[in-house]
């Protein structure tokens, strides 16, 4: 297999608040390959968005990357550790929006209401390529056409509030593509959208990926979207990576009790009417009150008393590409 375009190694991003330290990301590692989609899935507070923001070096204060490596393989074959770059350095800024494009959840607040979408696109294009204004405008129209916006020659002069939610999200994708990225990070790109619009945007991301051999990191809480889109999956819970592996293994041979419980508890359109769901007991703990040992142990139906509540489980490799962090697995292999 080719070299990964992005390798995250044992990333720790912590937030230092008055009330205590929140270990928002606590040891995440994964590889991203060109033309592939990596899904990061988890519930609120699991650290999936902070992982994305760490890669882009846009973690808000009081958060910062404590340790780890984010190795980006550049177009020329050299490798840059994003962690070592100062967050607002010229190089980091060139990578953000250049080599790595970003699509946010909420298109309305990510687009300016005071500039036409064309002007925002032109600005983004000219930040990363030396084009004249006219050339950049032509490129902007091209981008709008590429993301499937009808009548791009007219829409280029529209303001974001004149567009529907689906079109706005398409503009967000066009903006993310303006710097000709090789990696696209999409943070809950369809959460705010209706289901038929969601299908449109997912289809768009898929076709763009095919055309341009994009590497995509898709962050979502929706297991359905993951099943639909991802090649590889990282499941996170309270900052910890609990399981990762190829999408088929995650859905059909999950090893971590959390993955299994999560899959059982999601409502499915294939279920029988009025069928009750399997539940996970309790609720997600507050980030300040993260349980000792395995973060999932208070809600886990397979807890080993005296083990899970005291020791942090190590990540155990299962087969070639799957891994999970659970004491039950280390017991089996030992």
């Amino acid at each position, binding site marked *: 297999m080719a070299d990964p375009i992005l390798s995250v190694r044992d990333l720790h991003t912590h937030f230092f608040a008055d009330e205590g330290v929140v270990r928002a990301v606590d040891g995440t590692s994964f590889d991203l390959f060109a033309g592939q989609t990596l899904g990061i899935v988890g519930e609120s507070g699991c650290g999936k968005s902070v992982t994305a923001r760490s890669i882009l070096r846009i973690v808000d204060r009081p958060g910062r990357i404590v340790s780890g490596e984010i190795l980006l393989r550049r177009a020329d074959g050299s490798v840059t550790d994003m962690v070592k770059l100062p967050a607002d350095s010229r190089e980091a800024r060139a990578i953000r929006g250049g080599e790595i494009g970003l699509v946010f959840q909420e298109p309305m607040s990510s687009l300016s209401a005071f500039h036409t979408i064309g002007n925002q696109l032109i600005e983004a294009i000219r930040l990363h390529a030396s084009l004249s204004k006219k050339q950049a405008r032509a490129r902007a129209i091209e981008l709008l056409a590429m993301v499937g916006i009808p009548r791009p020659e007219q829409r280029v002069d529209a303001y974001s509030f004149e567009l529907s939610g689906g079109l706005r999200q398409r503009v967000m994708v066009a903006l993310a593509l303006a710097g000709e990225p090789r990696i696209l990070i999409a943070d809950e790109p369809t959460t705010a959208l*209706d289901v038929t619009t*969601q299908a449109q945007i997912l289809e768009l991301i898929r076709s763009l990926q095919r055309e341009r051999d994009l590497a995509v990191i898709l962050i979502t809480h929706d297991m359905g979207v993951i099943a639909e889109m991802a090649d590889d999956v990282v499941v996170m819970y309270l900052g910890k990576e609990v399981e990762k592996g190829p999408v088929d293994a995650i*859905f059909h041979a999950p090893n971590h009790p959390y993955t299994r419980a999560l899959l059982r508890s*999601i409502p*499915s*359109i*294939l279920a029988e009417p*009025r069928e009750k769901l399997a539940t996970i007991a309790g609720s997600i703990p507050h980030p300040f009150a993260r349980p000792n040992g395995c973060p999932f142990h208070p809600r886990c139906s397979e807890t080993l008393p005296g083990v899970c509540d005291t020791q942090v489980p190590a990540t155990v490799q299962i087969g070639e590409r799957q891994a999970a962090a659970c004491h039950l697995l280390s017991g089996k292999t030992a």
Partner: protein
Amino acid sequence: MTPVLDVRSLRKHFPIRTGMLGRVSGHVKAVDDVSFTIDRGETLSLVGESGCGKTTTSRCILRAIAPTAGEILFQGNDIAQLQRKDLRPLRRQMQMIFQDPFSSLNPRMTISEIIGEPLLVNGMTNNAERNARVAELLTLVQLPTAYMNRFPHAFSGGQRQRIGIARALALHPSLIVADEPVSALDVSVQAQIVNLLIELQDRLGLAILFVAHDLSVVKHVSHRVAVMYVGRIVELAPTRTLFATPRHPYTEALLSAVPVPDPRRRASRIVLEGDVADPSNPPTGCHFHPRCRYATDRCKVETPPLVEVAPGHAVRCLRTDEIALGSVTPPQN
């Protein structure tokens, strides 16, 4: 047996005002000729995308807003045009569960005050009696009664939603309107609330109007489903029928768009073109025709009526008998 709720030709038109003097230049037909019934112990889901009028419909039924026309027969009484004071005795019979578990509880009141408020304002002034009932309600929604004196900020989203449910049940209502009650919750918590609603309904014989956009959740909770598009019901059928044999092209597309949590079932989706129509200026004829892949010239001019194609299965489509639609097939194993 009379249904708990019988909605007949409900309409809600919002005037569009323009200019300094606020002249009415048109109407948004947010709800346009909507009819359905809900029986005791039954859940009817209203589904559709944003702007389809499902929330406006539910607000009209609760009389949070006054409908423009139509009848809302609640336990046989038409409440569509009742005045505020005449509504009050009927209101305690219909309660609401809200979407946002954070804004639906007053942060300045304790849990016992919040759940006790409906009891207090309806005459249960004895504190001990009221606290006993609050404890009973907390047990009903599976929360420890020891939490009575806590404030909402001490609870997680799922627990708050349980508190909201307890408040809604305080006055023994016969109808519950649940407006996206699980969409703001995490997946692992969502399942708990879905199950709780099913259990409570079976135990208390509630009629539930479940307003939602998530078809997977809808499949788990409802007996019957009504699909809305731009202010109109386009299809109404028992849950199993609707998911197995949809008869309206919009229902077909909606079902097809739902991502299935199984990577082995990556089907080719029906991806609809364009956006949901603007309810202030809807397309002529069938509102869905510009996005419909089965549309003919007839669909552009003729407004389809809601026709019963099988017992309990109504469809608003001119070509429903001519086209064969795909469905969500059952799992393959």
